[in-house]
């Protein structure tokens, strides 16, 4: 098994709406030696349905895990919520054989079976731990010189620590380290760093969700940061696509560039900017002058 060959787990939001994430992932990772395989038959990871029926969540995750297992591949899940769902499902099924049997009973209807061996990685795992900072450094062609960015880790990338997450729950620094390798000068800590973007409340409390987003963006803007780097399509949906709405909700003029880590990575390692979906970011990314073009 090629240790750098992964089945892509797209989830729901990325393939249907957050195209910039998928574009930048598909453009940058192969340049760094990662082979991405598209498996047919996948579905939602089930995490957004956890409030409705947790067994449904387990089932939805398990069926995709079973497909990966059948193909002898590990999953690469760019969305941290998918990553958490798949990972937690693994743990629950491994620790509770009765539950595993029950799920497998249901999987029979789709001719699937799962034994619990599929591994799942996230973008941070891939970049920081598997590819490694040394390798990334070698690929940097256009350093993001001195850009004072802040990182919005979101919730599922770092919590809950007991399940094992891509980065530390109280002082995550892996993305800052990646950004430094890319030449940026990130602000490594700020009081609201670990706060949620509000996305999970979109289904039933959208105004509150936008308030949360607005509050965090306002705080980051007051810091004097040049822009925000995020990892999760839900976070990005709030911080980027809904930035102006969030600004209206908290009565603030928000004007922060927000980019996916993989978009910045792409720019730094010299990927053709048109392949990174930069024109899909609704926040003022042009302020960072990443492509050297005039705004």
């Amino acid at each position, binding site marked *: 098994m090629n240790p750098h060959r992964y089945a892509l787990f797209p989830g*729901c939001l990325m393939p*249907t709406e957050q195209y910039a994430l998928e574009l930048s992932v598909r453009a940058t990772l192969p340049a760094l030696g990662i082979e991405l395989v598209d498996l047919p038959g996948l579905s939602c990871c089930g995490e957004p349905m956890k409030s409705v029926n947790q067994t449904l969540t387990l089932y939805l995750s398990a069926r995709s895990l079973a497909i990966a297992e059948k193909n002898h591949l590990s999953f690469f899940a760019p969305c941290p919520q998918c990553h958490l769902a798949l990972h937690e499902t693994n743990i629950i099924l491994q620790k509770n054989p009765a539950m595993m049997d029950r799920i497998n009973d249901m999987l029979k209807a*789709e001719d699937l079976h799962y034994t619990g061996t599929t591994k799942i990685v996230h973008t941070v795992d891939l970049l920081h731990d598997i590819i490694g900072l040394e390798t990334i450094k070698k690929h940097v062609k256009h350093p993001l010189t001195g850009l004072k960015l802040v990182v919005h880790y979101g919730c599922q990338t770092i919590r809950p620590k007991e399940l094992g997450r891509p980065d530390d729950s109280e002082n995550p620094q892996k993305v800052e380290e990646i950004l430094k390798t890319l030449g940026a000068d990130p602000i490594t800590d700020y009081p609201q760093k670990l706060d949620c973007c509000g996305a999970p409340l979109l289904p039933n409390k959208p105004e509150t969700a936008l308030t949360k987003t607005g509050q965090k963006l306002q705080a980051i803007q007051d810091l004097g940061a040049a822009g925000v780097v995020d990892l999760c399509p839900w976070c990005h949906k709030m911080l980027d696509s809904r930035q102006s709405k969030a600004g209206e909700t908290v009565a603030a003029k928000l004007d922060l560039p927000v980019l996916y880590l993989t978009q910045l990575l792409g720019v730094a390692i010299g990927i053709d900017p048109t392949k990174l979906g930069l024109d899909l970011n609704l926040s003022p990314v042009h302020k960072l002058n990443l492509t050297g073009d005039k705004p």
Partner: protein
Amino acid sequence: MTITDLTSMGEPQADVRAEINERLKRLQHHASDYCYQCAKCTSGCEAHKLLELEPHKIVALLKRGHITELTNNDVIWTCMTCLKCRERCPQQVAPVEILFAAKNLAVQNGKELPGKYTAMLQSILGTGLLQEIQTVTTTKNTTTTRDQLCLPPLSLPTDITKFQASIMAIAMQKP
């Protein structure tokens, strides 16, 4: 020997509480019994300031067995699942997971799903994903969609009928 809550004149529903604790244990979570009401969860709750959710109170209600009061309350749907309560609880109780269990129980007992949850559920049932391919705006003020961006076709359940049958079966089961 009885305990009566004088506000609601209700008695604790010990059997339902036991069932919820059982369910939590099956999902590898610690029993709510250990909570000692330090309120660290509520102090850090991201949903508290805006929506008045009090995770420690949710745990207290479960401990005492006021399940119906819990499941009938709309506040349980305000949890932002930021997971800070689960991360920082000194007794390894996870109020967020108790809230998931309460929401599941509410749905099981026939509560109507708030907001867009029904639409999301129906979409998963129909296609396997939360929503359909969206058309998005670009900075150049044009619109585009997945196919136009030359991304490969979606990965969806190969036999949608079998998939739907499985999902429907889950809805019929006891969690």
